[in-house]
C-alpha cells in the first residue's frame, strides 16, 4: 500500500500538469475560434483591402491600389464635415453623459426613502434598443404633433415649433441630447459603485474640519472618482465615435449631411457605393485613431496609478 501511494504522488504532478494544460487549451478553444474567425480574420482583411481595389458586388474590380483608397477618402467632399461632426458628436455626448451621470449618481447615493425605486427608474433608458430611443424621441420632438414642441410653445419658450431633426442647426444637438439620455445611466452605475467604496469617515473628518459640502465634494469625492472616470470616459469616447446606430436611425446623416459622421461614411462607401477598398481605408484610419486614443488612455492610467500608489 505504502509504495503504491508513493508511486502515485511521484507521478501525478507531471501528468496532471499536462492534463491541466490540455484541458485549458480545449476549454479556451471555442472562444478562440470565434474571436479568430469573426474578429481576427476580418481585421486582417480590412488591412489588406485598404491597399487594394475591391468592389462588393463586382469581382472584376481588383488589383493593388497603393494609397489610392486613402486619397479617395480624403478627397470626398463630405470627409472634412464628417470628421468635424464626429468630434462634435463625441465630445458633446461624453460631456453631457458625464455631467448628468455624475449628478444622478450623487443624488442616488443619498440615503432617502424610495432610493431603490429611483435607481431602477434611472437605469431604464440604458436598456432600451437604440432604435426605440431614437423613434420615441423623434416622435416627442415632432414639429407638428410632438409633445415637446406643444409644451414649449404653450409655455411661451418658443414662438414657432422647431423641426428638431429636420433643421440643420438643431439636428446635431438633438441627436446628442437623445444619446445622452440613453447613455448616461452607464456612468451613473459606475459612479455609484465607486461612491459606495469611499470610506464614510473621510467625510466625517472633513466635516469636523469645517469643510463645506462643495469643498467635501471637490476634496473627498472627486479624487475617488478619478480612476473610474478615466476608464468610462475613454471607453465612451471610442464607443461614441464609432457609433453608427444612433445617427442612422434618427437622421441617416441628414438633413443635408448636417449629422454625417465617419461610421455613416463607412456604411455609405460599403453598402451604397460597394467600394470595399475605400470603406476599408476609412476603417483603418479609424482603427489608428482608436489605437491612439487607447495609448493616451494607457499613459494617463499609468500616471494615475503612480499618483495613487505613491
Amino acid at each position, binding site marked *: 500500500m505504502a509504495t503504491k501511494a508513493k508511486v502515485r504522488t511521484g507521478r501525478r504532478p507531471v501528468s496532471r500538469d499536462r492534463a491541466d494544460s490540455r484541458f485549458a487549451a480545449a*476549454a479556451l478553444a471555442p472562444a478562440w475560434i470565434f474571436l479568430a474567425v469573426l*474578429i481576427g480574420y476580418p481585421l486582417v*482583411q480590412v488591412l489588406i483591402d485598404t491597399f487594394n481595389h475591391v468592389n462588393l458586388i463586382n469581382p472584376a474590380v481588383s488589383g493593388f491600389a497603393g494609397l489610392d483608397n486613402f486619397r479617395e477618402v480624403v478627397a470626398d467632399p463630405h470627409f472634412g464635415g464628417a470628421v468635424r461632426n464626429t468630434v462634435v458628436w463625441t465630445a458633446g455626448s461624453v460631456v453631457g453623459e458625464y455631467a448628468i451621470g455624475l449628478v444622478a449618481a450623487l443624488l442616488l447615493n443619498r440615503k432617502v426613502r424610495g432610493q431603490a425605486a429611483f435607481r431602477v427608474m434611472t437605469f431604464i*433608458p440604458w436598456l432600451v434598443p437604440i432604435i*426605440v430611443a431614437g423613434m420615441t424621441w423623434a416622435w416627442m420632438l415632432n414639429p407638428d404633433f410632438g409633445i415637446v414642441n406643444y409644451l414649449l410653445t404653450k409655455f411661451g419658450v418658443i414662438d414657432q415649433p422647431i423641426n428638431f431633426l429636420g433643421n440643420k442647426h438643431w439636428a446635431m444637438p438633438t441627436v446628442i441630447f437623445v444619446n445622452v439620455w440613453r447613455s448616461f445611466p452607464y456612468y451613473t452605475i459606475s459612479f455609484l459603485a465607486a461612491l459606495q467604496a469611499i470610506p464614510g469617515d473621510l467625510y466625517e473628518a472633513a466635516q469636523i474640519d469645517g469643510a463645506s459640502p462643495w469643498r467635501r465634494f471637490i476634496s473627498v469625492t472627486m479624487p475617488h472618482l478619478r480612476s473610474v472616470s478615466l476608464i468610462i470616459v475613454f471607453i465612451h469616447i471610442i464607443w461614441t465615435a464609432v457609433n453608427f446606430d444612433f445617427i442612422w436611425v434618427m437622421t441617416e446623416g441628414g438633413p443635408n449631411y448636417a449629422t454625417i459622421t465617419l461610421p455613416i461614411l463607412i456604411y455609405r462607401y460599403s453598402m451604397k457605393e460597394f467600394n470595399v477598398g475605400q470603406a476599408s481605408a476609412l476603417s483603418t484610419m479609424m482603427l489608428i485613431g*482608436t489605437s491612439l486614443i487607447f495609448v493616451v488612455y494607457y499613459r494617463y492610467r499609468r500616471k494615475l496609478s503612480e499618483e495613487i500608489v505613491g
Partner: protein
Amino acid sequence: MKTRTQRRLGNLGAYVLLTLLSIYCIFPFFWMVVSALKPKREVRARIPTLWPKDLTFENFTSVLGKHGFVTYIRNSMIVALSACLLSLVISILAGYVFSRFFRHHMVRFSNLAMLISQMIPGVLLLVPLYITMRNLGILESYLSLILAYTTFVIPLCTFMLSSAFDSIPMSLEEAAVLDGCGRLGTIRRVILPIMIPSIVSVGLYAFITAWNEFMFGYIFISQEKYRTITPAIMFFKGANSVDWGGLMAASVIAVLPVAMIFLFLQRYFMAGLMSGAVKG
C-alpha cells in the same frame, strides 16, 4: 437645530431633483405607451391629450398582424436566446480557465487578445464580416446574427464569469475531484449551481445585447422572414412615415421583454452591472 433643518432642506431638494430625474428617464416610456394606445386621429391631434380619450389596441393589432411583427419577435427571440446560450457555454469554459489557470501563458495571452478585441468596434469590421458571412453562405439566416452577437459579447461575459469563479474556493472542487468527478463534471455539478446568480446576470447581458442590436440585423438580413425586431422598426418607419401610433406600438413591443426581465430580475442585474461595469 440648524443642522436638522439644513438636512431637511437638503432632503427636500434631493427629492425634487430625484423626481425631475425620474421624469426625464421615464416620461418617454409613458408617452410611448400612451401614443400607442391612441386612435389615429388622436395621435395626430394639434393639442396632445395626456391620456387617450378612446383607448384602443388597434395600433398593436395592426403592427402585429398586418405588418408582420409576430414574425420579427419570433426571429429576435430565436436569435437572442441562441446567442445567449452559446455565449454562456463558451464564456463559462473560458472564464473557468481564466480564473483557475491564471498563471498559464496561454491564459495571459488570451486575456490580452480579449481585451483588444473588445476595443475593436463592429462597425469597422462591417465589410469583411459581411463578406465572411456571404462566403460562409449564411448571410440570409439566423446563424449569421447568432455568430456575430456571440462573438462580440464573449470578452465581457468571460471577464464577468472569471471574476465570479474567483469567488469560489478551490477546496470545493478539489473535494469533488477526489470523490472521482472529472473536471467538467465538477464544474457542472458542483460549481455552476452555486454560480447561478452570476450566470443569470451574464446571460441577461448577452440576451439584451443581442435583442437590442441593430446594425448587423439591418445589414446581414434583407428577407422579411429572417428579420429581427430592431431593423423591422426602422423599415416600418421608412414605409409608414406618418403612422406614429403604429411606430410607438412596435416600440412598446420591442421594449417589453427587456423591461420585464429587468423589473423582475433587477436585483441580479444591478449587482452584475455594478461588478462588471467598472472593469468594462
